[in-house]
């Protein structure tokens, strides 16, 4: 009996494998007539806000008018998977999340790299911010902030593929102990986690907890005192500052527009073309209105 069960399981597994390998080679390349699959993030996402603002995908009143039929995904990793699998797709992600599975578009002929963001030739970038309550910030959380805004902390930022901001102070550990709770943007969290690990290396008695939940949730947590520090991949809103938050910029992130590896028509796009695609005016890879 057992043997038969095992055989059946094995057969199902083989069937599954065949199906998966079978579709690996299904689609290659695109032509000028191929329709563009427009991939966007969900409303409220920090990445989307920044992308829409930078490419002016807005109406006269500044409202987001990304074409309604665009596919919407709730995380960077799903955007990457989708673009990796679909040769006709275009999407956008944080520059720090870029990997070899997909190709970054040269916007107006400029390659999306950290150097180009820093020297100002690649214009699509946004700040990574943190916010906290100045007067009730614990000593250890203040020390962590000091580390993040030190030369050592910014070296970590650079090593992770983001753009450091100009700082001059070196960090010296004062061997505090305690817990720092950080929450917020899913885009800022990856670099914050590395910063936390490095900081814990220097201060073995400190526990830094980084959780992701979105920029707005991070700000709310910081206001309500649930977290010591909130992370935002957008500017901290005036309404949030009014509730007692102090904000600080900890890094700059580029936004990479990405296409499938086999997509040769989308290697270089002008910002006007990207704007047209996301407004729904350009629908085919011939890139004509």
């Amino acid at each position, binding site marked *: *009996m057992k043997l*038969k*069960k095992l055989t*059946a*399981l094995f057969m*199902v597994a083989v069937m599954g494998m065949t*199906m*998966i390998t079978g*579709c690996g080679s*299904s*689609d290659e390349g695109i032509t000028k007539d191929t*329709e563009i*699959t427009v991939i966007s993030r*969900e*409303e*409220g*996402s*920090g990445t989307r806000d920044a992308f829409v603002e930078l490419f002016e995908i807005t109406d006269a009143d500044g*409202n*987001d008018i990304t074409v*309604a*039929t*665009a*596919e*919407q*995904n*709730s995380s960077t990793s*799903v955007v990457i*998977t*989708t673009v990796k*699998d*679909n040769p*006709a*797709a275009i999407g956008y992600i944080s520059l720090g999340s870029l990997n070899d599975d997909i190709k970054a578009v040269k916007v107006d002929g400029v390659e999306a790299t950290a150097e180009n963001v820093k020297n100002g030739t690649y214009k699509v970038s946004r700040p990574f911010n943190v916010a906290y309550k100045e007067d009730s910030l614990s000593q250890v959380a203040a020390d962590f902030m000091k580390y993040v805004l030190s030369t050592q902390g910014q070296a970590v930022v650079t090593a992770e593929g983001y753009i450091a901001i100009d700082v001059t102070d070196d960090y010296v550990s004062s061997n505090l102990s305690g817990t720092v709770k950080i929450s917020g943007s*899913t885009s800022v969290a990856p670099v914050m986690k590395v910063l936390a690990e490095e900081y814990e290396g220097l201060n073995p008695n400190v526990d830094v907890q980084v959780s992701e*939940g*979105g*920029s*707005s*949730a991070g700000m*709310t947590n910081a206001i309500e005192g649930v977290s010591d520090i909130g992370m935002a991949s957008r500017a901290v809103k005036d309404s949030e500052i009014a509730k007692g938050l102090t904000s600080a910029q900890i890094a700059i992130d580029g936004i990479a527009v990405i296409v499938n590896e086999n997509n040769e028509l989308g290697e270089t796009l002008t910002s006007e073309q990207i704007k047209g695609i996301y407004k729904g005016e350009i629908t085919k890879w011939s890139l004509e209105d």
Partner: protein
Amino acid sequence: MSDKRYTINRISDRTMHILFFICACTSIFAVAVICIFIFAKGLPAIGEIGIFEFLGGTEWRPGQEKFGILPMIVGSIYVTAGAIIIGVPIGLLCAVFMSKFCPKWLYKIIKPLIELMAGIPSIVYGFFGIVVIVPQLRSLFGGSGKGTLAASILLGIMILPTLVSVIESSLNAVPESYYEGALALGATHERSVFFTVLPAAKSGILAGVILGIGRAIGETMAVVMVAGNSPVIPESLTSNVRTLTANIVLEMNYATDLHEDALIATAAVLFIFILLINVSFSLFRKRKG
């Protein structure tokens, strides 16, 4: 002596009684609190947006304070209907096979596998959808592959265990005399099963289908990954669709103020849907009894 034992028994009886009662109350309490929370937060939001704008509006742009969930309601109905069209014939025939045609040794393999299907987490189904179903649909129909059809197929598979187990037990509950009577009148095995046993189990089959609908409409993670999630009423089987559940989970992380309340109001609408489904389920059950 025996008197004392009697008293002890009585006391332990009563304590257990109270304990069970408290347990029952806890689950009722949980349901009540969820109801109160959803409606207390959702209804004012609906009031603020306007019930007709909310339920009948076709535009969902939270950034511009446009909260129309009609596309999501239609999306949920389309996707669920698709899942039923795909899942019910397969599930029904599978249950008939298992109950009336299956050799014993095979039954011992199929039954645990179907139970295993019910235990697979929905995120795993989602990955299956994104790496197997979506690329296949893309190479068959073009476009992105994500959309109503992909979500329907995936949900059709996901509701199979529910359908099969409910229908199978209702088939087994049909008195053997129906089947034997049909045989005695000269009907073949197939005829007896399909024309006497199956009609006799009608209400049980309907109950299974309704439970399947409930499962399909409430499914979230798997659907989010394969539906494309554009908040527009789908034009064709392959165009993107967003369900009520997807609407909530996609935007909850970043929502603030009225946007957040609008999402809770979406949950209230979904809740009413599920309530209707459960009421009709118990109606069918009652008729069966």
